[in-house]
């Protein structure tokens, strides 16, 4: 209808292009075309397998390390990969490293869990009430820039030399990062999806669990990852400062002790362990969460 109306006006306004003949083509039946989808081939499929590519990077870095260390020839300052692996295997075998890892991981998971729970409460409050928003904004602005190590002396004063102090500083370092990311994620959930939820009778806490959390999951996951890294850093640093917690010592203490004894290969073995655990958590735990959620839902490439 609109075309009919505007056509006469339009023609008068501009000079039309020269006419070109129309083309009529015959098309093939889809059966006649035959190959429509093709297997990409073994090598290319391997190459597009991310864990394999990552592993190759690791192998390359390992080789570079070994070669450099052998050329430098100074095991006290820079032990080679093989020395480190030997030290690592010995300490795994005699149990010192395993117990250190176990101690650190237990504290880490506990502190991380408490922080995530607190973050959930804080952000839920923040998204449902205006005063909650102000509370979260003020608290994060105040405490997020404060390094965990800076409040360690205070923690020691309050909780003494023990697990509680460690957990306190871990919670501090994780809480604000996770809350901030989660809240930003909540705010960026599309207005339409919120309306869809409210249209189906959701409100308050049910809107948060049914709509906001899944819709903001990419940001939440990013926050959890950052929080995990912060937790590790804080824990190792705190252990380096005051070491033994009760009956057993953690990884930081293991590193500190071996440095004092000038057992550099064992220091490296400790650092190596931190790295391995980090890689496993990132490459296995977080990656599979991502694969099962945000990637599957097409919210992240």
């Amino acid at each position, binding site marked *: 209808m609109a075309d009919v*109306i505007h056509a006469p006006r339009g023609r008068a306004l501009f000079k039309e292009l020269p006419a070109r003949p129309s083309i009529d083509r015959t098309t093939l039946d889809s059966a006649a075309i035959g190959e429509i989808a093709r297997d990409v081939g073994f090598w290319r499929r391997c190459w597009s397998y991310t864990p394999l590519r990552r592993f190759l990077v690791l192998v390359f870095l390992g080789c570079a390390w070994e070669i450099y260390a052998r050329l430098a020839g100074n095991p006290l300052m820079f032990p080679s990969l093989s020395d480190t692996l030997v030290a690592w295997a010995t300490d795994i075998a005699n149990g010192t490293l395993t117990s250190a890892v176990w101690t650190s991981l237990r504290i880490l998971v506990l502190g991380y869990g408490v922080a995530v729970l607190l973050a959930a409460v804080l952000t839920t409050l923040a998204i449902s009430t205006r005063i909650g928003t102000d509370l979260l904004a003020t608290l994060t602005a105040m405490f997020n820039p404060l390094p965990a190590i800076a409040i360690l002396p205070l923690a020691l004063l309050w909780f003494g030399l023990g697990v509680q102090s460690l957990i306190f500083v871990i919670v501090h370092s994780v809480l604000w990062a996770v809350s901030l990311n989660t809240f930003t994620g909540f705010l960026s959930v*599309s207005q339409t999806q919120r309306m869809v939820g409210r*249209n189906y009778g959701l409100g308050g806490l049910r809107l948060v669990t049914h709509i906001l959390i899944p819709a903001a999951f990419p940001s939440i996951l990013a926050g959890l990852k950052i929080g995990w890294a912060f937790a590790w850093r804080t824990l190792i640093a705190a252990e380096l400062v005051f070491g033994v917690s009760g009956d057993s010592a953690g990884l930081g203490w293991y590193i500190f002790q071996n440095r004092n004894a000038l057992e550099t290969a064992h220091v490296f073995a400790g650092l190596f362990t931190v790295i391995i655990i980090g890689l496993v958590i990132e490459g296995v735990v977080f990656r599979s969460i991502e694969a099962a959620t945000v990637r599957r839902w097409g919210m992240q490439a």
Partner: protein
Amino acid sequence: MPSPALTTDAVTAAPGAGKQALLSVDGVTLQYQTKQQIVTATYRVSFDVYPQDRFILLGPSGCGKSTLLKGVGGFLTPVEGQIQLNNTKVTAPGADRMIVFQEFDQLLPWQTVLGNVMFPMRTTSRFPRNEWKDRAMRAVEKVGLAKFANSYPHTLSGGMKQRVAIARALAMEPKILLMDEPFAALDALTRRRMQDELLELWNDIRFTLIFVTHSIQEAIIIGSRIVVMTPHPGQIRAELDATAYTQEHAGSEDFMAFNRKINGMLFGSENIAHG
């Protein structure tokens, strides 16, 4: 622009005699308040929707059709006038009014097609749990997406997403169905089929439909009653009876004349001569 003579002429049929209005919109002004300014989207809009009406909101882009729908949906509060549903004031959104939104991101990306259709059943517990899957599957089949029931929305085309949203609303068998340009993204063929499906479904269930479009043709085919709105800020130009026209009449002389009449209201009278 609108001459008073035309306006009075346009209101052709009296509202359903004896029946009680299901939804009454009375002198409603809706505004958006942004940091810089207050935008009046609709100005003193009044109309009554009776049970089983197929009520069309027709108007140019930006005239406030979606805003009006959001008001009825309970997402916006009128600054003037009021919206009543079954004689009670609309204050909040609710599952008694199923909405198909205009936006493409109304599907929940973390749910499959079937999961999306089942989602409102799960949140409202309107039907017993053991019926959810069957009902959802039937709705998905109705919109021709049975093969994609277990796909995630990001793997669907724009038109397919829209059809899932329609299935999701229809599966709830709502008393009132609000649809905001639901067929705008569909190709002509699918659009035609969906229009037929919608009318057929209406014939089965006899729900009340409020339908937003800016296609005059679609308005006449789907609607039993058409509200024509003016450009921004939206006011009601006319409320027309369209019960006489269906798909089969498209192209007939009557149909074209009605089409031209609405065209004249929307575009101003200077264009009627060409149509």
